[in-house]
């Protein structure tokens, strides 16, 4: 690789093709707290999307936007709390702070994506950090999903205040989560590994009255 930006950092693919069992941040929670099977009466449903690629992008919006459009084919959400997906809905970029975005892509794509972004950003001031092992994504759906969130987060999740395409970092039952709304029916929680077990058990507990179930 010839550009200076690539030469001054030292990265490697932390994922391997070798047949090694991966364990999501929720592995212990499933073992300890179980995963209630979906039932007709379930008004809230959880589904973990483990082992996705998670990258944190840091830099100026203008320079990052150019690179992201070139490499991912979507515009960087420049407005605070913006969340955008690609056409397939498999890749997303979320505004986290004025110079910080979270990119989530299918697992295994993240290292190649990081390298392509680094090439596209050559010469600019930016940082990309792979945090794929450090967090997991939990989808929350069902007619009681919003009610469950109302019990758990301090943020106002009313549709008038939390439309589709919005994402925030907020307090969830005294811990921190990234909360996002990719579609009318679905909410997503991005939780850090250290708090995944706690968050999961909180969701099971708070969701009990809605017959919460877990799709695995």
């Amino acid at each position, binding site marked *: 690789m010839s550009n200076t930006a690539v*030469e*001054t*950092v*030292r990265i*490697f*693919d*932390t*994922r*391997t093709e*070798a047949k*090694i*069992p*991966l*364990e*999501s*941040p929720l*592995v212990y929670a499933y073992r300890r707290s179980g995963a209630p099977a979906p039932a007709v009466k379930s008004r809230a449903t959880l589904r973990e999307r*483990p*082992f996705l690629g998670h990258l*944190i992008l*840091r*830099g100026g919006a203008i320079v990052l936007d150019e690179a992201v459009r070139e490499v991912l084919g979507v515009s960087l959400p420049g407005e605070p709390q913006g969340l955008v997906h690609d056409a397939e809905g498999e890749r997303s970029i979320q505004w986290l702070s004025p*110079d910080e975005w979270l990119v989530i892509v299918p697992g295994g794509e993240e290292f190649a994506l990081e390298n392509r972004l680094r090439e596209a950003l050559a010469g600019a*001031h*930016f*940082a990309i*950090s*792979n*945090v*794929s*092992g*450090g*967090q997991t994504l939990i989808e929350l759906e069902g007619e009681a999903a919003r009610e469950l969130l109302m019990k758990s987060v301090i943020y106002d999740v009313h549709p008038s205040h939390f439309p589709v395409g919005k994402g925030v970092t907020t307090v969830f039952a005294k811990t921190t989560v990234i909360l996002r709304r990719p579609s009318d029916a679905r909410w997503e929680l991005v939780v*850090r*590994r*250290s708090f995944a077990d706690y968050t999961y058990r909180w969701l099971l507990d708070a969701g009990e009255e809605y017959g919460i179930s877990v799709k695995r």
Partner: protein
Amino acid sequence: MCKDDGMVFDDGTTSCLGENHFLMTTTTGGAAGVLEWLELWHQTEWPELQVYFTSVTDHWATMTVTGPEARKLLAELTDIDLDREAFQFMDWREGKVADVPARVFRISFTGELAYEINVQANYAQHVWETLFAHGEKYDLTPYGTETMHVLRAEKGFIIAGQETDGSVTPEDLGMKWCVGYDKPFSWIGQRALTRQDTARSDRKQLVGLKPKDPRVVLEEGAQIVLDPKHAIPMPMVGHVTSSYYSPTLDSGFALAVVKGGQQKMGETVYLPMADGQTHEAEIVSTIFIDPKGERQNV
């Protein structure tokens, strides 16, 4: 790392991964505070510095293999050249451990030969289990924080928040060696560390304490006096910061801060306890075992 008053508030290691790429570790509970501290100074005082900080705490799982057989065990599982010259103390290498991409740091908090293996956390259980499958013949065993506390204290390694309390400078800890006084620019704590008060020789300084009776494990927090016959209130010259029984020394031993302690080696101090007993201890070096560092440098 110092606050602007020159007092130590956290410690850790920083590794240079590339010319513009660093990985910083902190104490377990200090990570968020250190990140905020870096952001605060970057955003308020030095916005012109082109740098970003991102937490990768949850991304990496770190396992430390430590002890005289650490090299032999790790060599069975890695493609990294572990030769003592090829991979020296305070260096790092990239490779595979148990077929998992890893960064391995040769850093030691136990005073023994040690390798800190970092892998993406989703692979940690596999690496851990592989280490233990291969480690059985070396009597590999997990060790907890209590063991770690004893091992590090025997070496005089501090714990921020235990040896420090917000009033301790790097020099008080005998760690002047790690302060870059010759940096060509200003740094946090620079002005404070040149004040008369931080330069005076009778500040409380970190020392080792060896109880005269090896069966005594001094109480952490116990006050230290020079004259136990002095009328109460006695002038107090310091206190015990860490204290344990050491199986290696077959004796209690302690770290303490004592006024002007670094100039008091070999002197006797007294620790009057609430129950009326008074313990006697000798001021010694903070390094109780392997003062030359030969065991971590094999």
